[in-house]
């Protein structure tokens, strides 16, 4: 990164206080960079104004791909490439192809969706995440505010807003 970035961090103890604080802070016009929590806090994405994840769509599309691949493979192998009579059944014994079709649907949907999740959230073994506060994976909720994005507001003013919203600690963190 070419220049330093500075963040003001609000530390919250309680998830319900956090939810109200996010609403309060956003209503004053302060832009929140991100909130880091030790566990999923329900409703947080709504008060932060995040759009719903489109991962279910990815899962659906990968699922369809799985079904089509499985069906194409089975019909190609059993009906066209090397037709054999097995147990007096039709070459294209559609009902027999359902189990493998189902399993491949689930397999591709699950792996495809998880793959998209990993890429979109930048999850990979060699990732070096910015850890704002190590307690955010233990028992504290951390609200990070990027000073560069809130240049119209004084740092002191932001600290005041955070303090009045119920933050138990207010810290500053800079990254190179």
């Amino acid at each position, binding site marked *: 990164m070419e220049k330093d970035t500075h963040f003001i961090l609000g530390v919250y103890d309680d998830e319900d206080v956090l939810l109200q604080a996010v609403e309060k802070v956003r209503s004053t016009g302060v832009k929140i960079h991100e909130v880091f*929590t030790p566990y999923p806090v329900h409703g947080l994405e709504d008060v932060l104004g995040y759009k719903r994840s489109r991962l*279910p769509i990815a899962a659906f599309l990968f699922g369809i791909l799985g079904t089509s691949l499985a069906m194409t493979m089975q019909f190609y192998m059993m009906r066209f490439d090397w037709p054999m009579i*097995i147990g007096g059944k039709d070459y294209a014994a559609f009902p027999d192809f359902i189990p493998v079709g189902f399993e491949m649907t*689930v*397999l591709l949907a699950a792996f495809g969706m998880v793959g998209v999740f990993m890429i979109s959230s930048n999850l990979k073994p060699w990732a*070096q*995440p910015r850890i704002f506060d190590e307690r955010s994976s233990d028992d504290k909720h951390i609200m990070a505010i990027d000073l560069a994005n809130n240049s119209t507001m004084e740092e002191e003013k932001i600290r005041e807003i955070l303090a009045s919203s119920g933050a138990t600690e207010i810290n500053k963190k800079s990254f190179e």
Partner: protein
Amino acid sequence: MQVTSSVRQPLITGGKTYHDVTHDVSRQVEGKPSMLWFLAFLTAAGVLALGSIALIATLWEGIGMWGLNKTVGWAWDITNFVWWVGIGHAGTLISAVLLLFRQKWRTSINRAAEAMTIFAVICAAMFPVIHMGRPWLGAYWALPLPNTFGSLWVNFNSPLLWDVFAISTYFSVSLVFWYIGLIPDFATIRDRATGLRKTIYGALSFGWDGAAKTWMRYESVSLILAGLATPLVLSVHTIVSFDFATSVIPGWHTTIFPPYFVAGAIFSGFAMVLTLMIITRKVFKLEDYITIGHIELMNIVIIITGSIVGIAYITEFFIAWYSGVEAEQYAFINRATGPYWWAYWSMMTCNVISPQLFWIKKIRTSIIATFILSLVVNIGMWFERFVIIVTSLHRDYLPSSWAMFYPTWADVGVYLFTFGLFFTLFFLFAKFFPVINMAEVKSVLKSSSEKVHK
């Protein structure tokens, strides 16, 4: 700062704070292993080593080492396979089906139950692979790779092939589901650690930072994976039951098999979860996380599935008589009164009668009673598969080829091998991975929002 509601019992006892949860679970990973753990691990590894003699002998000499004969072509191997797959059903059921039903008590046990699922499926998969005789050629028989050993392609009309797809899909999807859940907890351990441990758990945590946006996607992924895993878990044992149900062997050729096998799988899986969790909570001092309440709820699932299994046994018997098919009637009379009567009645006692004891509250909230009964159920479920497989085969359509099955030392040894493998993997997991899903437990710690709604 545990906030309790006046209407709901807390899921986690002992007034734990969020930090206590982190500490209680992480300290197992961070501390030096206890003597008890070493002892348990070495025992498991010893059984694994001992069993591998039988495994190597079987691979070297071929499956003639087993007690199979021309009449009984499937015996211990397939019994063990179905038994292990059945045990492997509880983990995904707990994490997926109970997630969809919003049963929050699952959070304390889902991690270990999923680990158990994965290890049990590995053990299960060993048996069909060894039974191929020459497993190094197995890829040609199991996967759609063109070859000239038989037909050009694998046979997609065969339930044995469906099983290959079902078990491998189940294994890999369960593994992914389990790992996604582990990522935030690895990050917790990373943030507490220094040095090499920080590097290792940092890599394992995939750079998790707990951002609200990532949690939102994580929740979405968990829900969809649960939605996919629910029909998947039901399909796996359904397809395992097709291995039997689609063949024309009396005692196997019945339409009741899929639901009956699925209920049996959940039944034995919960029993195994109980066996393991009762030991784990004791060894790792997690009594506040896996409470008597959890044990009681699992025992209730055992009563329900045990009763379904009991009804299935009786229905099978009735339908055999009602069908008017002589071979079918004989197969069932032979099960109950023939040379394998002891296996049949062991199964009936262990699976139908013993779980009914859980109707008594004193028994289902007693740890010792639960532990003993969970072992009884697992023994019973092994006998169920043995009865279905061996008693249906040993007296076939031709009385001249009737035979008995006697296991050899290699049969016993390969079964021991999988026990060693299962427990070695489980003890390694229990030491190096967080055995309780910290993030999810934290999310159910509060049962009310008193702090803001005064």
